[in-house]
C-alpha cells in the first residue's frame, strides 16, 4: 500500500497511526502529572523536578492531544474510513483525494501542536479550553506566546481537516449506499458516524471562527474577547473596547460540547452492533436507537451553556441550559436500556470484542449518571472545575470512548488483517483495563467532592486552610496515581497481542463472528445489494441471514 494512497483503508490506517502517536504521548504526559501530584518532590528522570508552568503545559497538551487527536480522530476518521464504505456497500469514499488530503492535514496539525513543546517559553498553559484573556497575551504567562500560537495554528488546521473529512463522510453515507441500503437497514455504526460527522461540520466551523477572532486579538490589536482596561502583568492591554471573555466561552463551548458527542457516538453505534451480534439477537428497538442517536446529536448542539453556570452567565440562562442538559439524559438512558434489553437472558458469546462492548456499557452508565448531577446549576456551583468533573468526563468520554476503540480493534482485526487476535490476551487486557479505569477515575469523584480543583500543580507545601483541605486528599492521590500507572501497563497485553497476531501465519476465516453487516461480505466484482436489515439471527439454531445474502440462511452448524 503506497503511503500517498487515496484508498480509504490507507487513509484510515493513517488516521489510526496519528492517534496512536497522540495517545502514547498523551498517556506519558498524564503519568507525569499523576506522579507529580502524588510525590511532588520526586524529580522526573532526565527532566528533573516539574515546575508549575510545566505541569500546566502537561495538562493542556494532554487534553488537546487526547480530545482532538485521539477521541475525535480514531473513532470517526480512523475506523470510519476503514469500515464505513464496506458497511454501506460502497467501494470507496465519495472524494478519495480530499479524504487523503485531510488526513495529511491532521498529521500536520499534530506536528504543529507538538512543536509547541520546543518553542521558547514552552507549550501553552491555559488548558484545552484556552480561555481569554489568559490566552490573549504572551504577558499572561510562559507558553502563552509562541506556544499558544502553535496551539492556535494546530487546532485551526485540525478543524479544517476534520470539517473536510466530515463532509466526505456525510456525502459517502448520503450518496454511495448500495442498492437496498435504506434508512432502517443502515447499521447503527453508520448512524453514529453520520451524526458525529454532521456535528463536526457544524461545530468545527464555529471553533474556527473563534480561533480566528482570538488570533486577531493576539496579533492585530483586536478586542473581541479583551475587556476594556484589562491589566495583565502590569501592562494595560486594551483601552477602549467592547470585548468580553464570555464570548469566547460561548463560541468555544458551542463547539466543545458537540465535540464530546463526536467522540462517543461512533462507540455507541459499534457497541449496539457488537452486543447484538454476540448475543445473536436483533438490537432491541432498532428504530428507537436511530432516533435517539439523532436526538442526542440535535440536543448536543443546544446545551453548551452548562459549561458556564458559574462563569458569569445569567442565572436564567443557567436554568434554561440545565433543562436542555437534563433532557439529554433521556435519549442516553434509552440507549442503555436497549443494550440491557438486548443482553437480557441472552447468554452471549464473550469472545474478543464482546467484553469491551460490555465494558463500554458499564463505563457509559457509571460515567453518565454523574451527568445529571453536574447539569443542575446549584450542584455545579460546588462541583464546577473540581475533579468530580474530571472523573465524569474521563469515565464517560475518555474511558468509554477508548473501550469503543478497543472493541473496534478486536472486532475488525480479522477483517483488516486476516489474522485472529488471541482470546486469552484479550481477556487479560480487558480485565486489566476495566479494573484500572475504575480504580483510577472513581476516587477522583471523591477528591472532587472534597473540593480539589482542576489544574492544581501542587496540593501541599503551602500554609493556610486551603492546603489543609487539599492535603486531606493525599492518600487518594497516591492511590489514583498507582492505579493510573497500572492502567497504562494494562495496555501491554494489547501490544503483545497485536504483534503476535501480526506475525502469526494462522489465517482468519472470512466471517469469524458470523456477522450480518456488509463489511464482512466476500469481495466480489458485481455490485453490492442489500436485502434486509442487519442482525438477523435464528433463535433456534446458529443460522443467520447476512444483509447481502439474497436467500437461505447460512447455518454454521451444518458447515
Amino acid at each position, binding site marked *: 500500500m503506497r503511503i500517498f494512497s487515496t484508498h480509504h483503508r490507507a487513509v484510515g490506517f493513517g488516521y489510526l497511526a496519528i492517534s496512536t502517536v497522540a495517545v502514547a504521548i498523551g498517556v506519558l504526559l498524564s503519568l507525569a502529572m499523576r506522579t507529580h501530584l502524588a510525590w511532588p518532590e520526586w524529580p522526573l528522570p532526565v527532566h528533573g523536578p516539574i515546575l508549575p508552568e510545566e505541569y500546566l503545559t502537561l495538562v493542556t497538551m494532554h487534553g488537546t492531544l487526547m480530545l482532538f487527536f485521539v477521541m475525535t480522530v480514531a473513532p470517526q476518521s480512523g475506523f470510519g474510513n476503514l469500515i464505513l464504505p464496506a458497511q454501506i456497500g460502497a*467501494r470507496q469514499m465519495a472524494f478519495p483525494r480530499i479524504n487523503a488530503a485531510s488526513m495529511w492535514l491532521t498529521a500536520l496539525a499534530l506536528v504543529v501542536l507538538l512543536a509547541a513543546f520546543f518553542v521558547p517559553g514552552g507549550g501553552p498553559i491555559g488548558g484545552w479550553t484556552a480561555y481569554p484573556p489568559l490566552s490573549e497575551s504572551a504577558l499572561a504567562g510562559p507558553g502563552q506566546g509562541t506556544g499558544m500560537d502553535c496551539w492556535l495554528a494546530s487546532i485551526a488546521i485540525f478543524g479544517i481537516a476534520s470539517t473536510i473529512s466530515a463532509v466526505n463522510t456525510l*456525502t459517502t453515507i448520503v*450518496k454511495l449506499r448500495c442498492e437496498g441500503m*435504506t434508512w432502517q437497514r443502515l447499521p447503527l455504526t453508520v448512524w453514529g458516524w453520520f451524526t458525529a460527522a454532521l456535528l463536526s*461540520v*457544524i461545530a468545527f*466551523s464555529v471553533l474556527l471562527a473563534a480561533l480566528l*477572532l482570538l488570533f*486577531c486579538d493576539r496579533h492585530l490589536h483586536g478586542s473581541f474577547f479583551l475587556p476594556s482596561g484589562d491589566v495583565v502583568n502590569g501592562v494595560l492591554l486594551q483601552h477602549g473596547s*467592547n470585548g468580553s471573555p464570555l464570548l469566547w466561552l460561548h463560541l468555544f463551548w458551542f463547539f466543545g460540547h458537540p465535540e464530546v458527542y463526536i467522540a462517543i457516538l461512533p462507540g455507541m453505534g459499534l457497541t449496539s452492533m457488537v452486543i447484538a451480534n454476540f448475543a445473536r439477537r436483533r438490537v432491541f428497538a432498532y428504530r428507537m436507537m436511530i432516533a435517539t442517536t439523532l436526538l442526542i446529536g440535535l440536543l448536543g448542539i443546544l446545551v453548551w451553556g452548562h459549561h458556564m453556570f458559574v462563569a458569569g452567565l445569567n442565572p436564567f440562562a443557567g436554568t434554561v441550559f440545565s433543562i436542555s442538559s437534563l433532557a439529554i439524559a433521556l435519549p442516553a438512558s434509552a440507549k442503555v436500556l436497549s443494550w440491557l434489553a438486548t443482553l437480557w437472558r441472552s447468554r452471549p458469546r464473550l469472545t474478543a470484542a464482546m467484553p469491551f462492548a460490555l465494558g463500554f456499557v458499564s463505563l457509559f452508565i457509571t460515567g453518565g449518571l454523574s451527568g445529571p448531577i453536574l447539569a443542575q446549576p446549584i450542584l455545579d456551583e460546588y462541583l464546577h472545575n473540581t475533579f468530580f468533573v474530571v472523573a465524569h468526563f474521563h469515565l464517560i468520554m475518555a474511558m468509554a470512548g477508548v473501550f469503543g476503540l478497543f472493541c473496534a480493534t478486536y472486532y475488525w482485526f480479522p477483517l483488516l488483517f486476516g489474522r485472529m487476535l488471541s482470546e486469552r490476551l484479550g481477556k487479560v487486557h480487558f480485565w486489566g483495563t476495566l479494573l484500572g479505569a475504575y480504580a483510577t477515575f472513581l476516587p477522583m469523584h471523591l477528591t472532587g467532592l472534597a473540593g480539589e480543583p482542576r489544574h492544581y500543580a501542587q496540593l501541599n507545601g503551602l500554609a493556610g486552610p486551603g492546603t489543609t483541605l487539599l492535603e486531606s486528599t493525599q492518600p487518594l492521590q497516591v492511590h489514583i496515581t498507582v492505579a493510573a500507572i497500572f492502567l497504562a501497563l494494562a495496555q501491554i497485553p494489547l501490544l503483545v497481542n497485536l504483534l503476535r497476531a501480526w506475525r502469526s501465519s494462522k489465517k482468519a476465516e472470512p466471517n469469524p463472528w458470523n456477522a450480518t453487516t456488509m463489511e464482512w461480505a466476500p469481495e466480489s466484482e458485481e455490485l453490492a445489494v442489500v436485502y434486509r436489515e442487519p442482525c438477523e439471527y435464528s433463535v433456534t439454531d446458529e443460522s443467520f441471514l447476512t444483509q447481502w445474502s439474497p436467500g437461505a440462511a447460512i447455518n454454521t452448524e451444518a458447515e
Partner: protein
Amino acid sequence: MPITLTPPEIDRRHHTGEGDGGGRKPPTDKRTGGNGEGGDNWGDRPQGRRGPRERLSQARVGLFFALGGDLMFFVALVSVFFVNKASGHFDAYSHWVNEWLPTALPSILWLNTAVLLVSSVTAELARRSMFREHDAMEEWIGFGRPLSRRAGIWLGLTLLLGALFLAGQWMAWDQLAAQHVFFASNPSSHFFYLITVTHAVHLLLGIAGLIAALAGLQASRSMATRQVLVDSTVWYWHVMGVLWVFLFVLLEYGQ
C-alpha cells in the same frame, strides 16, 4: 433542476419508498443515455461511477454540507458582531461607555455588490449552457465541443467580474485606510475588515474554482467531469454572492 444528460423521469429515487422505509432502493439510473449509450450500462459500474447524474448530485451533496459548515462560520461571526455592537463597559466614573462607532461604508461597495450579482447571472448562464441537450448531442455526434465553447465564454466573463469585485473591495479598503480607519481602530471597524476579508478569501477560492473549471473545460474529454466542475463551482459562486448581499446589508444597515 437543470436538464441533465439523464432524462429526469428515469431517476425514480425520490418517488419510490416514500411511506415504507424498507422498500428496496431502486437501481440508480440504468439507462443513462449520455456517452454510455449502446450496451455500456452505467449500472454495471462500481458505486459512485454510475453516470453523470450520480456524480453530479454527489458533488452537489458534498458542496451542500461544506457550505452548511461555512454558514455556521459566518453565523458565529455575526452573533459576535451583535454582542460586540451592543456591549460596553463602565468607565472609572461608572458611566456606561459603548466604544462602537459605526464604520461609514465606502459607496463603492454598492458598485461591487452589483458587479457580484451580475457575475452570478453570467455564472448561471455558464451552468445552464453545460446542460443544453442540443449541444451535448452535437458533441457526441462530433461537431466540436459547443458545450465547452459556450460555457467557457460565460465562465470567463464571471471570472472577470469576480476579479473586478475583488479589486473593488481592495479599493474600499484603500479608501478606509486613507481615512485612517484600520482594523484596530474600533470594534465596528474590526468587523468591517473581518467580514469583508473573510468573504474575499472565500471568493478567491471561488475564483480558483472558476480557473479550475475553465481548465477542465479545455482539458477534460469526459462531459460529465466538465459538468460537475462547472456546476459545483457555479453553485459555490451563487452562495458566496447571496452571502455577500446578506453581509453587505448587515454592514450597511446593521451597524
